[in-house]
């Protein structure tokens, strides 16, 4: 999953980037509003963390601009002042949630997870897909109660497919959301991850959770109860 962090304080930006990279996110950084505006308009992100007090273009203007241009990814706002004027303005501009500085990284993580769940239309932190259960907060996948040993990339691939369950996701889209810009797009690493995931999720090959749509991409075919 691809995340954009917009924060002018270099140290804080670095801490956030390191933290979410370690959580398996593909993180891109912007130090000012103008750069972030460009990046948000050009690249597909799954979430953005935006500081309100930015140089060049303020956080509120940035979010409003994205929304005007139909960039609908969830936005978590960071505010140093913590007064309601700032919070309400941020939310009115199009942000989805806010965190007041100083914060614990775990708090940001929880909010990011909640926003992701909301974007995927889920209200629970866990999703059950037949015998497969995914804990989106803990990033843990179990099959019939047994924890599966997934790498970060494998988990991210699965999460993105589940996030868009029922839709055909092209390899290009998967690559864009799972890897940074330097990734070699011609490599067959996506096929490799999908192959490994299938083996781990469906060792007996009777569930077929990930279907290949020839010439188009992949589709997560299992449904959660109520879907």
């Amino acid at each position, binding site marked *: 999953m691809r995340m954009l962090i917009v924060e002018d304080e270099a140290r804080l930006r670095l801490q956030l980037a390191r933290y979410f990279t370690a959580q398996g996110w593909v993180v891109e950084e912007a130090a000012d509003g103008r750069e972030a505006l460009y990046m948000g308009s050009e690249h597909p992100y799954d979430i953005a963390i935006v500081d309100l007090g930015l140089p060049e273009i303020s956080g509120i203007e940035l979010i409003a601009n994205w929304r005007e241009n139909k960039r609908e990814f969830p936005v978590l706002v960071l505010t140093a*002042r913590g007064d*309601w004027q700032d*919070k309400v303005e941020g939310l009115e501009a199009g942000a989805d949630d806010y965190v007041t500085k*100083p914060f614990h990284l775990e708090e940001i993580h929880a909010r990011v997870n909640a926003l992701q769940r909301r974007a995927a239309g889920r209200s629970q932190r866990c999703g059950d897909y037949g015998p497969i259960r995914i804990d989106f907060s803990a990033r843990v996948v179990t099959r019939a109660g047994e924890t599966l040993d997934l790498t970060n990339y494998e988990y991210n691939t699965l999460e993105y497919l589940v996030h868009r369950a029922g839709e055909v996701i092209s390899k290009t889209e998967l690559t864009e959301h799972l890897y940074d810009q330097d990734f070699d797009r011609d490599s067959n690493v996506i096929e490799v991850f999908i192959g490994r995931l299938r083996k781990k999720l469906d060792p007996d090959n009777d569930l077929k959770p990930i279907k290949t749509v020839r010439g188009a991409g992949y589709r997560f075919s299992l449904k959660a109860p109520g879907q």
Partner: protein
Amino acid sequence: MRIAVNSLAGRLLLASALLLPLFLGATGLYLDRSHRLSIEAAETERLQLQVLTLLAEAEFDQTLWLPDELLERRFNQPNSGLYALVSDVNKQVLWSSPSALTLELENLSLKLPNLSVGERDFVRRDSLFQFSYQVIWAVEGGGEVPLLFTVLETVGPAQAQLGIYRRGLLFWLGGSALLLIVCQALILFWGLRPLRKLAGDITDIESGVAEGLADAYPQELQAVTNSLNTLLQSERKRRERARNTLSDLAHSLKTPLAVIRSADPGEQDYGQLVQEQTQRMEQIVAYQLQRAVSGSHKLLQMVAVAPVVKRLQRSLLKVYADKGVAIELEITADCVFRGDERDLLELLGSLMDNACKYGRRQVRVTAAGGGTQPLLMTVEDDGDGIPLQLRTAILKRGTRADSRQSGHGIGLAVAVDLAESYLGSLQLAESALGGACLRVELP
């Protein structure tokens, strides 16, 4: 000129100086005309009297006869200024007084009026007043002879009298104008004295000699001085608040700093201790910062409550979307808050956020009154309510920021501070929904 127009006194004086000559000029013209008409009326009467005297002295026996020595001596003296002549229907002069020797009678007779019997005419001709009276003289044998008796007098004496009157009028009217302008200037000086005093008092406030404006201002200025005093007071309160915030912040941060400094980095729980103390410092900063940004007290503004609550409702529904909380509003349309919109946002934001956070599914916000009535606002939720022991701690004034707990504490403490800074109160009660009911009353 520009300086005069830029001052109130200058404007009023300029207006008076422009208008006064107009009024006095019109008055002068009217008085002059009235006086001239009265002089002419007196002249008419006098000349008519002369004509009647002449008629009394005249006799007609074949021809008109008048005595050589007339009763009015000026008729007998050549060029005396008073002349008489009698003419027939053909304007042929039949008799003229000895005084009229130097007059050009032929020219004069041509200009005599054509009158009916008994008709009179008074006219000013060049430098002469002329009065004519047409009579019919009954002669012996039953005949009637029409005769026109005309008396003329030079305008000189009347003109001289009018000149004296005009000079007097000019003197008095001019003097009155000057006197009025001087009086006007004195009235302005006296009338505008409160404004000069106000300027002086404001200078005193600027230089720190005084803290506010005195009450002894005229009624018309009291609205302004009261508003200025309110603004000054709120500004002073804001300064005190900022100073207290800084002082509180400095003092309350020293304690956790001291704890960290005095701890041994070699101790096993050093990391945890630093974590705890930085968390404490974070709470202190958050609390003081919220206190500092609130309470700007624009007391003269009337802020409609409903739009502010609706903004907060939309924002909080977004933030608590996962929880599926419903925020119900019961706000009267005319409900207003007298103060700064930012303060209202802060006050209700803290209360509504807490209600959404600690409520289960339902939050209710009610507001009524405001303006001249006290403003009453309640925020209720269906959560577990606020424990009794915490209620007292929250409502206790002057509680040190560093002793406050996270969660309910910081937001509500700021709400309490804000309500009190508007001379209002915040009370905690139990809601019919089952959770807490926070009731704010502002006078």
